[in-house]
């Protein structure tokens, strides 16, 4: 019997990071080694650190956690000759609403990520790494612990990695439920045993990260893409995508589609094709209303704005973001007031309370949206939602404030008629 995956793969996918997912036993080191495993590490071991970083730069890989920062450039900021030891931190705190891809990368191909971490370690001469996994993903902590144990037992971690004399130790670290800890500096405070509060930048984590050591920090998917980049060359990876948007990424399609699932698509893939062909279109012949392109923090796109290629730059031009790859498809029946309220309930719950514009802003926005949803809305609330949100923009240490404000602004501006409908219904009731 074929391996049961979370969703049926699509023939339209381009499999790079997910190429081993469907193979029986893909989570084991033997299967990984039989499928190109550690070819890239051995190759990287023969390269200079500068050449590794150049290859990653050539690949045009951009951070898959949400910010989309060029990975090679980020690596180049880590001072590899610093007298302080360098550390690697993996952000596996996947919690951006709409996103469920890092789960699969760890569950189906943990050794691919480990190899990516080892290559990053060569590039910055680091000898210890920590995988920060959200507490709700306990089963994945177990998967990673098993993979790490197996790698140690077979000589792919520890004092003599793959017989090359390179030394590296890798550990998992459990979170305990906090969206904010997906923000890289809050994650660093959390890994130090504190509340996850964002830090002022600079200094950036590359210079003073975990325990004030130079820290190379990337998302699970970013590390998982590294073996293919080194093995087949940065140029080959870059060529899969569009200029400055290299490679493929896992797109998590959820919501009103016939075949929701996680699919690996090249950067620049047409959004409407992803919805209609990869994910099988909208059920019941209903019309598309809107798309959240990359997790709940992204400004929402109206149906007529969705005929675009999915790359970081096009999405930015469209006033939104590619984010974390969490694409939520909404059909014409979706109540945008309810949707906006649920988004704000989330951010109000997750605001760490450090910055007042975020802590107070999310609370008040939630209150206003709640009363609107309960039929107590006032006409002036519509403009107040927008104004309050705009007052939060850029006034907080981390991106959570903006993440709460941006979708709200876009929903209020693009779907004012949904709010008007609530007011009209209230008038009828009176």
């Amino acid at each position: 019997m074929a391996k049961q995956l979370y969703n049926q793969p699509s023939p339209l996918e381009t499999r790079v990071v997910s190429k081993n997912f469907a193979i029986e036993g893909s989570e084991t080191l033997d299967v990984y080694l039989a499928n190109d495993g550690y070819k890239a590490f051995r190759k990287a071991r023969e390269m200079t650190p500068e050449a590794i970083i150049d290859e990653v730069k050539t690949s045009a890989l951009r951070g898959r956690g949400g910010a989309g920062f060029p990975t090679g450039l980020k690596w180049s900021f880590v001072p590899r000759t610093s007298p302080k030891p360098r550390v690697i931190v993996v952000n596996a705190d996947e919690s951006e609403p709409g996103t469920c891809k890092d789960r699969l990368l760890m569950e189906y191909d943990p050794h691919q990520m480990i190899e990516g971490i080892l290559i990053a370690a060569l590039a910055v001469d680091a000898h210890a790494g920590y995988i920060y996994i959200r507490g709700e993903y306990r089963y994945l902590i177990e998967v990673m612990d098993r993979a790490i144990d197996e790698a140690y037992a077979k000589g792919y971690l520890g004092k003599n990695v793959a017989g090359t004399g390179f030394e590296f130790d890798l550990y998992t670290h459990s979170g305990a439920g906090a969206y904010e800890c997906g923000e890289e500096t809050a994650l660093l405070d959390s890994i130090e045993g504190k509340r996850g509060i964002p830090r002022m930048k600079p200094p950036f984590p590359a210079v003073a990260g975990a325990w004030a050591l130079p820290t190379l920090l990337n998302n699970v998917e970013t590390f998982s893409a590294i073996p293919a980049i080194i093995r087949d060359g940065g140029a080959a990876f870059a060529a899969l995508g569009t200029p400055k948007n290299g490679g493929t990424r896992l797109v998590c399609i959820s919501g009103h589609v016939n075949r929701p699932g996680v699919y690996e698509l090249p950067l620049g893939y047409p959004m409407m094709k992803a919805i209609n062909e990869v994910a099988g279109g909208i059920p019941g012949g209903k019309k598309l209303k809107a798309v959240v392109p990359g997790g709940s923090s992204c400004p929402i796109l109206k149906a007529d704005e969705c005929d675009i290629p999915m790359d970081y730059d096009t999405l930015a031009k469209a006033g939104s973001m590619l984010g974390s790859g969490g694409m939520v498809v909404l059909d014409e029946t979706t109540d945008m007031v309810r949707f906006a309220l649920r988004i704000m309930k989330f951010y109000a719950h997750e605001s760490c309370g450090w910055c007042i514009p975020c802590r107070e802003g999310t609370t008040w926005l939630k209150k206003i949206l709640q009363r609107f949803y309960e039929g107590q809305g006032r006409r002036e609330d519509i403009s107040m939602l927008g104004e309050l949100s705009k007052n939060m923009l850029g006034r907080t240490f981390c991106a959570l404030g903006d993440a709460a404000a941006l979708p709200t602004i876009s929903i209020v501006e693009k779907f004012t008629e949904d709010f008007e409908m609530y007011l009209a219904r209230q008038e009828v009731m009176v």
Partner: protein
Amino acid sequence: MNFSPQLEERFAKMLTRYPEGRTRSAVVPMLIYAQDEVGAVTNELIEEVARRCKVTPLQVDEVVGYYSMLHRKPQGKFHVQVCTNISCLIVGGEELYEHAKKKLGVGHKETTADGQFSLEEVECMGACSWAPAVEINYDFHHHVTPEKLDQLIDGLRKAQ
């Protein structure tokens, strides 16, 4: 305070993995693993984690209130977590949560009188493409309908 041999082994390793003098880093993972065994973050547990990680009890206490999975009071033997965040919301997550409230006769963060089940409306847990999702303790359940939730709960009840 003593834990099971497996947990003691885990904690012994945990305290060696961070850089020299940085045992405070073990506070959060130690709390969550210990909580699973003890049932809640008790005062005694706070003191114990503080002692092991070489920090003050206050430094442990202050993180307990921050992380949503850490709790001072015991939960049910089966902690039913229903996601109602956006991807779940639009495919019936909120209705599923309402159904769970009725089925268990408890509300958000409440426990049934027999101590078997507790309920929590949770934020996104990374199952968006297979929504609506429920996590019972650490087990994920995908594409959950009210009927499927009833079966899950009844099955756990019967297994008692």
